[in-house]
């Protein structure tokens, strides 16, 4: 028996505008509303709306035998509400089928786990609240931003009542073990760990249109045979990827939609296969072992560590200076300040400052709204300088 478990990440950051030295102190808007609206509407049209419709059709065609899970960030939902409410409706229709599971994460798609557990928990709670508001849904599985994970994530997630959490199935944490089983997490008693099968996931997310790759062109039946081959030495194939894979990272003309349209049927052709959502996987399969993951792992780049966000001193100094302000931001009691501070925590801002230009640097460049990583650092620090002035004006004694 092999269960295919899809989890799609839906996220759009509030991108910063160019905050010039002359703007500092003018308490201007930090985020490029025009560009954010433009990108959101573009991606909605290319990806979210058509893919949601396709997934809905597939669920209906298979009477729910095809099923998927999503994690949608709070900042993405906020922007949908503002710029593309029809996307919210289409997600609601999916959730209403009963075959779609929603996961929780940090509302602001932040790296708060690494800097402040207090802030981390608050953001998870905010996300939980948003799920209830928009979807009337209570997630039972947690995934941390960019699959940032170590034992402590499992521990905290369990404390917050989650039954499972997701992580990258990186070779250096698994060793000889396979990602195709359910695991227990060290330091937690009951929470289950689902690990991304990065080979098969990345075949779709990154290599799908790569003509130099031996798997190209990737068809649904070919992919299904790869999944079938796991039969007998695994329970579950966790296919975790950015939802923007469909139509945005892989454009429509690559055949990605066609692939997705046929995949459920091809997978289900094998009588031993099915689709499960994370909660169903946890219920169906017993853990085979306990994983002790002390160093932080993530799903980014070939390193699968934090170097995409915290690999250079610009990134570190930007994020450290931001989190330094937590206590005083919260003491200010100023909702607008708190909201801006949290939007500045979104991991993308630090990703844009990445200077690893080789291999994965290409991927970074694709996602980067700035010409140079230094420009994004400059925009961030100018904004932060203004933000600190606002803080100071709100709490005159804070220094």
């Amino acid at each position, binding site marked *: 028996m092999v269960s295919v478990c899809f989890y799609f990440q839906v996220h759009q950051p509030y991108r910063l505008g160019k905050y010039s*030295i*002359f703007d500092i102190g003018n308490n201007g808007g930090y985020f490029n509303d025009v560009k954010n609206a433009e990108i959101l509407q573009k991606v909605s049209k290319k990806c979210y709306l058509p893919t949601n419709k396709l997934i809905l059709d597939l669920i209906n065609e298979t009477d729910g035998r095809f099923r998927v899970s999503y994690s949608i960030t709070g900042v993405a939902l906020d922007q949908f509400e503002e710029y593309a409410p029809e996307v919210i409706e289409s997600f609601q229709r999916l959730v209403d089928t009963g075959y779609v599971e929603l996961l929780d994460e940090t509302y602001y798609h932040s790296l708060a786990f690494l800097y402040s557990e207090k802030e981390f928990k608050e953001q998870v709670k905010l996300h939980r609240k948003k799920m209830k508001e928009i979807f009337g849904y209570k997630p039972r599985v947690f995934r941390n931003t960019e699959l940032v994970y170590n034992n402590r994530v499992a521990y905290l997630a369990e404390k917050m009542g989650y039954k499972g959490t997701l992580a990258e199935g990186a070779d250096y944490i698994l060793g000889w073990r396979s990602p195709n089983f359910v695991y227990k997490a060290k330091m937690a008693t009951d929470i289950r760990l689902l690990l991304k099968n990065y080979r098969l996931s990345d075949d779709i997310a990154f290599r799908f249109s790569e003509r130099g790759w031996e798997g190209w062109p990737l068809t649904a039946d070919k992919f299904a045979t790869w999944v079938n081959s796991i039969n007998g030495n695994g329970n579950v194939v966790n296919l975790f990827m950015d939802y923007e894979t469909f139509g945005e990272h892989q454009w429509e003309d690559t055949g990605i939609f066609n692939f997705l349209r046929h995949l459920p049927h091809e997978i289900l052709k094998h009588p031993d296969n099915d689709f499960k959502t994370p909660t169903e996987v946890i219920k169906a399969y017993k853990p085979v072992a306990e994983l002790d993951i002390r160093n932080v792992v993530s799903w980014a780049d070939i390193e699968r560590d934090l170097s995409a966000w915290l690999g250079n*001193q*610009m990134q570190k100094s*930007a994020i450290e200076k931001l989190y330094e302000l937590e206590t005083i931001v919260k003491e200010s009691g100023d909702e607008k300040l708190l909201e801006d501070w949290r939007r500045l925590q979104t991991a993308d801002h630090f990703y844009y400052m990445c200077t690893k230009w080789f291999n994965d640097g290409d991927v970074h460049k694709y996602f980067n709204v700035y010409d140079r990583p*230094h420009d994004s*650092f*400059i925009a961030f620090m*100018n904004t932060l300088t203004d933000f600190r*002035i606002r803080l100071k004006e709100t709490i005159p004694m804070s220094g």
Partner: protein
Amino acid sequence: MDSNHNHNIKVLMFGWEFPPFNSGGLGVACYGLTKGLTRQGVGVIFVLPRIAGTLNEEYMRILAADKFGLDKDKIKFKTVDSILKPYMSSKSYISEKSGLEGFLQEARGIYGSDLFSEVRRYSKYAKIVASEEEFNIIHCHDWLTYPAGITAKNITRQMGKNVPLIVHVHATEFDRTGGNPNQYVYDLEREGMHVADSIVTVSNYTKSIVVRHYGVDPRKVHVIHNSIDFEESRIDEKFRIKDHHKIVLFLGRMTIQKGPDHFLWIAKKISEIDDDVRFIMVGSGDMFSYIVEEAANLGIGDKVLFSDFLNGREVDRAYKMADVYVMSSISEPFGITPLEAIKNGTPVVISKQSGISEILRNCLVVDFWDTNLMATRILDVLNNEELRDSLAKKGLNEIRNFSWDQPAMKCIDLYKKAISGGI
């Protein structure tokens, strides 16, 4: 001086940039000098390269605009299409990350593949101009134009006239490279200086470099300091950042010559003493990325704020916003920026290794390498209101009478001597 006496002087001038087509001080200086000369009745034929892809008519339209305040009967522009910008090292010519990058790549097929073949190409054009135009002095600005000047002089010799050549040294390869000259550039500079009938340097400081490093007879070298045409600052603006932070400004290309790294070290020292000071660095250049990263490395990533190259009014706003302007150059032949700062009411702390420190009295002067003393002097200005006001006020009075007529007249004297064979 009665400008009518100068009508018989016609200068064939070779330059590399001219506002608004400039990236730094060379264009400003050429413009100023041309303005001064034409005001004194001298005729100038100004030859400059034109960035590939722009039309000659477009250039001419912009250059002919009234805002330049140039006497149209006295100035004539000739452009040659090129993809060069001044201040480029051969290396940065190839790698420079700028808006020009795209067409640089495209243009490489059409034009020479490096800086030096561009220089040769430009000097070939000089042949055409020199045989078409009427002039009795050749004046060229910095090494890129020396081959053109020499070519022009040779043409006149063939025509039996032997027009005198003056090379004007705004910067040497030693200044630009922090003492690690490119041999090819050095050779071109040296040849220009030796072939020239007379050499102008923008300071005594530069004269000493020319004499020391290029084996030139000091009697052949004439110091003519740059200037500005003083006008009141156009900026009257309150900056809210000033309610919270004192501002120390760096403004210049981020290249080794300007000492942006020294500025960072100074910033680090000051930050350790006063946490509320902010340092603004304006400019781009081959050290830009390094400097931004180094600010973060030094732990002052939140204290040092950056801005790309600003133009015109924004430059004045930056000066106006600052409490003190720092010129940290490790070798600055002249250095016009302190005058711009003072014009905007901002006191200056400047490197002793500069030409401007020879003529400006109301400023604080420190050896560029003495970052401790630099930091102390800057803090003095920031914390001592009396000192700050006095430097600003007296500085403003001092430069009020500055004008490009002064250097222009010195040039004219030199022209006259050269034409009469007196040098």
